[in-house]
C-alpha cells in the first residue's frame, strides 16, 4: 500500500514530434482508487507506462510513499499492471500466465506450488475464467484475454495496481459486473489503485479521486462529485456526464444573459457578482446538463426557451430528446413517458442555479462564491 505522487511529468515521443505528457502532476492517496479519465490518445497509457517504469520520463518525478522512484527498475517498484493491449505470454496457458508474477525471483519464498495454484484458481474464478485455465491466449476471445490480463495484475498484492482500461473490451453486462467486483476487491484489500478509462460513468462510479486528462494535460482533478458539479472548463463539462452538457453562447446584457433573441435569462445574485466587471462584448458560455432541464407546454409562463422536438433516443426508463430552435441544438434527458412527439412545439424550463458559466475565450469556469 502506498501513496503515489506525480510531479511535473513530461514525456515526448519521436524526438519531440509528439508531446505525450505536458507537465502532469497528480496525487493518489494511500489506499485510494484513482481514475484517470480521458479520450483516446490523451496520455493515459503513457502515464501508466511511466508509473510502471517501462518508459523513462523526460522530466519530473514519481514518488511512492514520498520515495523518489523515477529512476527505479520496474521490478523493484512492486506495482502490478494490467495492460490495455493485454500483453499475455502467448506460449503460456492461462494458468501459467496468472502464476507468472508469483514465480518471480522476488517472491521466491512467499509462495509454495500449492498456495500458488490456490491463488491462481481463486483469481480465475473471481474473473469468471476458471474453466479456461489450460487454454492458450490465442484460444481465447478478446474479453477473456482482457480478464486474464487483469487477473495477472490482481493475483498478487503489490504496493499499487495500475489498470489501463482493464475492462474496456468486455461485453456490457460483464463490464457492469466487473466494475462492482473491482471496487469490492479494492475496498477489501485497500490497495492503492490507478485506473484509466475513456468511460466517464466508469470513472464516476469507481473513483474516490479522479483526474480528467486531455492532450497530455490534466484538465481537472478532484473527487467525482467535485468534477461533476463544478467542471473546471468546457472540455470537462462536456466529457463528464452523458449526454454531454449543453453549451450555449450568450452575451451579458445588464444583469441578464441573452441568447440571440431566443432567450433572456436573469442571473442569480452569485452569478451577477462573479460576472461583475466582465466585458459586455465578450460572450459567456452557458452550460446546462440535459438532466437539469424540464419540458413545459409552449405557452407556459415559466418556459425560458421555445423549441421544436427532433430526434428522440429511448434509453429505457429515460429518453434523450434533441430539441432545435433557430439552428441551435439542445439535448435534454427526461422520463420516457414525458417525451414529446417528434416535431412538437415545446417550452424548456430550467433553474439558473443548475447552470455553469464559462469564459468564451479561455473556456474556463467562471467561479462563483458557491463553488
Amino acid at each position: 500500500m502506498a501513496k503515489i505522487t506525480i510531479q511535473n511529468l513530461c514525456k515526448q515521443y519521436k524526438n519531440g514530434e509528439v508531446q505525450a505528457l505536458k507537465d502532469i502532476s497528480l496525487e493518489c492517496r494511500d489506499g485510494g482508487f484513482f481514475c484517470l479519465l480521458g479520450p483516446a490518445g490523451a496520455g493515459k497509457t503513457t502515464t501508466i507506462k511511466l508509473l510502471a517504469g517501462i518508459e523513462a520520463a523526460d522530466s519530473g518525478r514519481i514518488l511512492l510513499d514520498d520515495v523518489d522512484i523515477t529512476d527505479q527498475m520496474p521490478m523493484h517498484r512492486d506495482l502490478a499492471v494490467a495492460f490495455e493491449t493485454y500483453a499475455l505470454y502467448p506460449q503460456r496457458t492461462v494458468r501459467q500466465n496468472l502464476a507468472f508474477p508469483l514465480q518471480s525471483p522476488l517472491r521466491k519464498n512467499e509462495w509454495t506450488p500449492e498456495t500458488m495454484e490456490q491463488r491462481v484458481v481463486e483469481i480465475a474464478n473471481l474473473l469468471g475464467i476458471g474453466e479456461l485455465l489450460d487454454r492458450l491466449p490465442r484460444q481465447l476471445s478478446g474479453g477473456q484475454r482482457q480478464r486474464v490480463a487483469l487477473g495477472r495484475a490482481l493475483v498478487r498484492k503489490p504496493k499499487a495496481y495500475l489498470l489501463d482500461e482493464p475492462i474496456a473490451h468486455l461485453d456490457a453486462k460483464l463490464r457492469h459486473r466487473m466494475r462492482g467486483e473491482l471496487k469490492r476487491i479494492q475496498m477489501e484489500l485497500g490497495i492503492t489503485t490507478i485506473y484509466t478509462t475513456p468511460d466517464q460513468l466508469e470513472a464516476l462510479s469507481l473513483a474516490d479521486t479522479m483526474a480528467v486528462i486531455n492532450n497530455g494535460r490534466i484538465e481537472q482533478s478532484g473527487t467525482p462529485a467535485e468534477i461533476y458539479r463544478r467542471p473546471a472548463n468546457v472540455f470537462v463539462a462536456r466529457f463528464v456526464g452523458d449526454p454531454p452538457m449543453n453549451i450555449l453562447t450568450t452575451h451579458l446584457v445588464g444583469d441578464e444573459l441573452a441568447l440571440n433573441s431566443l432567450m433572456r435569462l436573469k442571473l442569480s445574485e452569485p452569478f451577477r457578482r462573479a460576472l461583475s466587471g466582465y466585458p459586455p462584448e465578450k460572450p459567456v458560455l452557458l452550460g446546462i446538463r440535459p438532466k437539469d432541464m424540464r419540458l413545459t407546454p409552449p405557452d407556459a409562463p415559466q418556459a425560458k426557451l421555445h423549441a421544436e422536438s427532433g430526434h428522440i433516443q429511448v434509453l429505457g426508463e429515460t429518453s434523450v430528446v434533441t430539441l432545435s430552435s433557430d439552428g441551435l441544438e439542445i439535448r435534454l434527458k427526461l422520463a420516457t413517458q414525458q417525451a414529446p412527439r417528434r416535431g412538437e412545439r415545446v417550452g424548456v424550463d430550467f433553474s439558473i442555479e443548475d447552470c455553469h458559466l464559462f469564459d468564451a475565450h479561455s473556456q474556463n469556469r467562471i467561479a462563483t462564491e458557491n463553488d
Partner: protein
Amino acid sequence: MNAETTQETIVLDARQRRILLGRRLMRWLYYLLTALIVMLFLFPWLWVFSLGFKTRSEILSPTIVWIWKPTLVNFYEVLIAKGYWRLIINSLIVAVSTVTLCIVIGVPTAYAFSRFPIPGKESWFYMILTFRMAPAVVLALPLYILFARAKLLGTYFAPILAHCTFTLPFVIWLMRSFFDDIPKEIDAAAMTDGYSRAGAFFHAILPLVKSGIVAVALFSIIFSWNEFLYGLILTSDATRPVASQIPSLIRPHGTLWGEVCALATTASLPVAFLIFALQRQLVRGLSFGAVKG
C-alpha cells in the same frame, strides 16, 4: 455407403461428370508436378551418391552406366584409408562450436538492437551486415596474419573464429527481425510482474523465439558446413573441415571422382539428419511472424 454412391452417380449429369473428371485430372497433374520437383532436388544427390559406388571407368564412361556392380572401394579409400572421416568430425566441431558461440552471444545482442536505444544503432547494424557480405578472401589474409601471430593456426579456434565473421552477423540480423515482431508490452509485462530485464528476456521472450533460434542455427550450420576458403587457409590437416579438403582430391593426373562423390554425400548426411530431426521447428521458426529485414 453403397447406396449413397449409386445415388450420387444417378444424380450426376454429363456436365458434372466432366467437371469432376477435370478436377481429378488437375489433382493428378499437381501430384505429378510435385513429384517431378522433388525428384529434381533428389535425383542429382542420388546420382552423386551412386557415383560413389562406381569405379573410375564407370564414372567416366561417355554413356551413363545404369546397371553396375556397386563397389565400396571409394568409401573405404576416402573415409578409412585416407582417414577423412575425421574431417567430418572436424566439420561438426567447427560448425557446432561456431553456431553455439554465435547464438549465445548474438541473440542477446540482437535483443539489445531490437529494444535498447543504442546510439548510432542503425549504422552499427549496417556495419554488421557489411561483415556478412565481405567475401571470405577479404578477411582470410588478415586473419591468417593475425592467427599466425597468436599461434592459433592449425587449432580449431582458427576456423571457428573465422566462421564467426559471417555467422554472427547473420544471427544478429535475423534474430533482430524476430525480436522486432514481438510487442514490447510483453517485456514490459514481465518486468512489472517482478522480473529484471534479463529475467524478462529469459522467461518471457526467449520461449517465443525458440523455433526462430532453431531455424537461424540450422541455416548457420549449413553456411558453416559449406564454407571452404577459411578451412583451407587457416587449418592444418588435423583440423581441416571436410569441404575444404575436397579440392585435395583433384589430382594432376585426374580428379578422384568416386572419392569426391563418396565423401560429399557422406558429409552431407549429418546436416540432413539434423534438418530432418528439427524440420518442424525450422518451418515454424521461418514462418514466425513476418521475417522482416
